[in-house]
């Protein structure tokens, strides 16, 4: 908006900040009890657009605060490098639609290696482009780690995630903490 000098009255914010705020304020009563015995491990991709390019490390901290609150601190493993210094996964900048699939997968090899190096079972991707790209990397390079949206895990930890809202959960979590299981389709 600065670039085009567009006057506007609103502020622009990102949802991670509000997820963290609502958890701190007790509005979202999340907990990680569901994962106490399961011990499923998670890592997270810092979206370039949100962290390095827009809100910086403070929002990366909010993102980690949220993830730790919902999966348990001991079940979170950070990727290296991370936060503002993270590597792009290759899903951004239009690359997903540019038609150069082979090069895009080659680009993403580094990201796939970084994810595998964490040893995590899941990769959390809060950004859609990242989600699509990392999901493809997981299949292409045979890691087969599920790639999940943040809203899925927040609702899972709140015990309000229905059976039809689990598209991106792996088989290990499809039946955990199911809300209204009778509505399964």
């Amino acid at each position, binding site marked *: *908006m600065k*670039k*085009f000098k*567009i006057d*506007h*009255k*609103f*502020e*622009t*914010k*990102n*949802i991670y900040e*509000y997820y963290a705020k*609502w958890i701190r304020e007790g*509005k*979202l009563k999340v907990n990680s009890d569901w994962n106490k015995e399961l011990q499923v491990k998670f890592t997270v991709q810092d*979206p*370039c657009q*949100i962290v*390095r*390019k827009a809100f910086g490390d403070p929002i990366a901290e909010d993102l980690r605060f949220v993830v730790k609150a919902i999966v348990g601190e001991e079940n979170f493993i950070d990727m290296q490098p991370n936060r*503002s*210094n*993270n*590597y*792009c996964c*290759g899903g*951004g*900048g*239009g*690359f*997903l*639609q*540019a*038609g*150069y699939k082979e*090069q*895009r997968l*080659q*680009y*993403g090899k*580094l*990201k796939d290696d970084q994810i595998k190096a964490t040893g995590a079972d899941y990769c959390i991707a*809060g950004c*859609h482009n990242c989600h*699509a790209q990392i999901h493809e990397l997981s299949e292409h390079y045979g890691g087969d780690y599920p790639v999940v*949206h943040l*809203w*899925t895990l*927040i*609702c899972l930890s*709140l015990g*309000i*995630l*229905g059976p039809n*809202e689990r*598209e991106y959960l792996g088989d290990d979590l499809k039946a955990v903490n199911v*809300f*209204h299981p009778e*509505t399964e389709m």
Partner: protein
Amino acid sequence: MAEEAIKLGGKKKSLFIDKVKGIIPDGGNLNLCLTCGACSSGCPATGLEGMDPRKFLRMCALGMDEEVIASKWIWMCTMCQRCIYVCPMKIDIPQLVFNARAQVPREERPKGILGSCDMALRNESGSAMGTSPEDFIFVVEDVLEEYQESQPEFAEMQAPIDKQGAEFFVNQNSREPVTEPDEMVPFWKILHLAGADWTYGSKGWGGENYCLFLADNEGWEHLVRQTAGQADALGCKTYLNTE
């Protein structure tokens, strides 16, 4: 040794890099490169098409405009800005990439990006999938109703569209309403439990902007104005990006 000093050739030709220096803040520091290579060593696009960020900048500095603009690499750099982050001189290579994209005739830019931009310009949704406001409203209302019934704890949950005076103007990636509408529901539940006063906009709800990636400045600006105009028209205090 030559008898006379060699004179370097006449008038300097107009280079692409000079044009870019003129339009970005502080000229993007484009003439400050120390050739250290920090950009390239930490760039996942290094090696693709025989290119890397340092080489790209050097080619621009040498006036190899045609080669640079013809390189497919400008569509493989994601403009993630890690090169700026690690650069001791904070050189804005991504802006150079963006403007190189803009030098390619619009119809010769990658079809997928072009198509997504054109889709977004097709109606007032701003959705890269071309979904109309009517279709979006229908899907949202249909899915909401289904969940209000099947999960009675959320009978009061709302997914407002064009709610005047809502605090948050919430964007929505097009993938959910079009291909996996159930994925919108967990997000609505969170907003409901947090007591957030929010709304989608019938205009400009699409969260993505492929015209930006296409380096179509006019289309990019149109989409941003459309969304900003709707958020202001509804009197929303905060534009909330959901991804």
